[in-house]
């Protein structure tokens, strides 16, 4: 599957990389859905011998292919929230020299990067690669509610019901884009919905 080229954007929008094998005592891979393909691309027998793969399936069937890489540890779960307690445990047990590889959606990469950084993993040891859905994790600036998998602009906040414009402004701390009321100055005048990258 070809990778999506994000259009040039503003200074707060994160730039994702391409996974490459690094030297390390241990390797933690966290991926969701098509993010599995980035692991398949980078995996080597040496890397896998010290690898822990945490895979969030989100309805895809990459699990068997990943298992076939023979990682030292493998976990398969339905969602990031379901995997989070295991991720926290792995990070709290981590030693110096851990390499972290995160691939898949922006929502996963944003949240998982924070989790690793908060556990003390230096940014130089965290790699990311976008694969799969370009949907955004969004925070409504009004009610502060988060909505996952936002693919269209504008969209209706699933918490407070306001019509929100999907900004490119992004908070790494919140791992979210900002949604701002689109019809505050003319209630009801909401532009036609379109895909964020259309």
């Amino acid at each position, binding site marked *: 599957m070809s990778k999506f080229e994000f259009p040039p954007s503003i*200074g707060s929008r994160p730039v994702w990389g391409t996974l490459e094998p690094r030297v390390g005592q241990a390797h933690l891979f966290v991926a969701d859905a098509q993010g599995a393909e980035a692991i398949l691309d980078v995996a080597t027998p040496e890397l896998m011998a010290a690898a822990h793969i945490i895979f969030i399936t989100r309805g895809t069937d990459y699990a068997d292919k990943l298992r076939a890489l023979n990682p030292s540890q493998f976990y398969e779960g339905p969602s990031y929230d379901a995997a989070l307690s295991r991720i926290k445990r792995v990070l709290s047990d981590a030693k110096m020299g851990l390499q972290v590889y995160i691939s898949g959606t922006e929502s996963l990469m944003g949240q998982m990067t924070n989790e690793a950084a908060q556990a003390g993993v230096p940014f130089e040891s965290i790699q990311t690669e976008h694969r799969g859905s370009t949907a955004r994790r969004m925070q409504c600036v009004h009610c502060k509610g988060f909505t996952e998998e936002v693919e269209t602009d504008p969209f209706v906040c699933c918490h407070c019901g306001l019509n929100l414009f999907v900004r490119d402004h992004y908070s790494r701390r919140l791992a979210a884009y900002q949604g701002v*009321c689109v019809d505050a100055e003319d209630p009801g005048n909401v532009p036609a919905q379109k895909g964020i990258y259309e």
Partner: protein
Amino acid sequence: MTIQFNDETFRDDYSFHNSEWAIRRFPFPFHEDSYMYSMNAEQHRGGPDGSVYENRFDVDEHYVSEMQDRAKVLSEDPLRCQSLPHMTLAGWDLLELIMVSKSEDYPDLFELHRDGDQWRWVNKPLGIDDTFTFLDESTLPYGPMEYITRQSQGDFALLDQRDENLWMDAGMVTTQADWSLDFNIGMNFIEWHGPVPLANEMGIFKRALKFLLNIPQGSPGRRLNWTMTVNPLLDTSPENYHKWGIQKTTLTPENIGAKQHLRVELQTFYRLPRSNALAFPIRCYLCSFQDLMTMPKWGRRLHRVVRDLPVELATYKGFIDNRPLMIDYLSKFDDGLPTSPGIFPEPETEPPLKT
């Protein structure tokens, strides 16, 4: 001089008003008849007597009412004041800077008595007389940044300096021109300026960052920034935009002079001694169009600036829809005469409006 503090509101019935004194010292942000982004920073080392530049932290007739408005905002949304855990020392630095400056610059209003780390702070306009231990948070009712900025006009950001960048890691933000501390906290200088159009392409932010990283102790800087606000609403927050945005549509040719306000930020920059953080006070001044028009120079110039501003900027500053109405109103105060350079109104020497 003794300041008469106004009893006024910045919401609901909007009883905010500027005295003639306040109009005359209003920090008009245009030094010439056109505007484009620039860093336009200079040393913050005083200014003409009575101007907003004279003292380190300007106190004016709106002080008490602004602090009451801030308390209301914080009561409704405590997240307007946040400080990441490593920023407490910078908060103490800021508290010291403000207490020392105000007690020296306004001895009739503020007193600071220091005996080792036992400090007594007297704020007469707000009726505060507190004794506390410097650097001991448990002796203050709030964290040090929140404590002192509940008593200081303007927003405050505390910027941590590391990795050749500035990080907005603490702030008190209740009089903002439509940006969210809760969303932006933790961002670096380039990130939090991400949404600003044109300036990035012009290389402004790279140069501004370099300037700010090199500000030394004892040598503060300042600059003016501006936007437009309908009604004297201090708290134009994104959080409440769905509530106040509609007010922008209430302008008419009859009410624009009273309702439309030029909103000016006096931004200052101070290197802090213990934390090496940068204090970034952002002081908001509001003035209605009709009050600005009492100064012939400002009438002529504001018309020319608003008329000729690039569309991107008028859009970003949120008044593109109202611009035609503004130009109609302002054009009546522009007789085509030249204006003198600089921001000060100079009513004694500037010719009156030709009618």
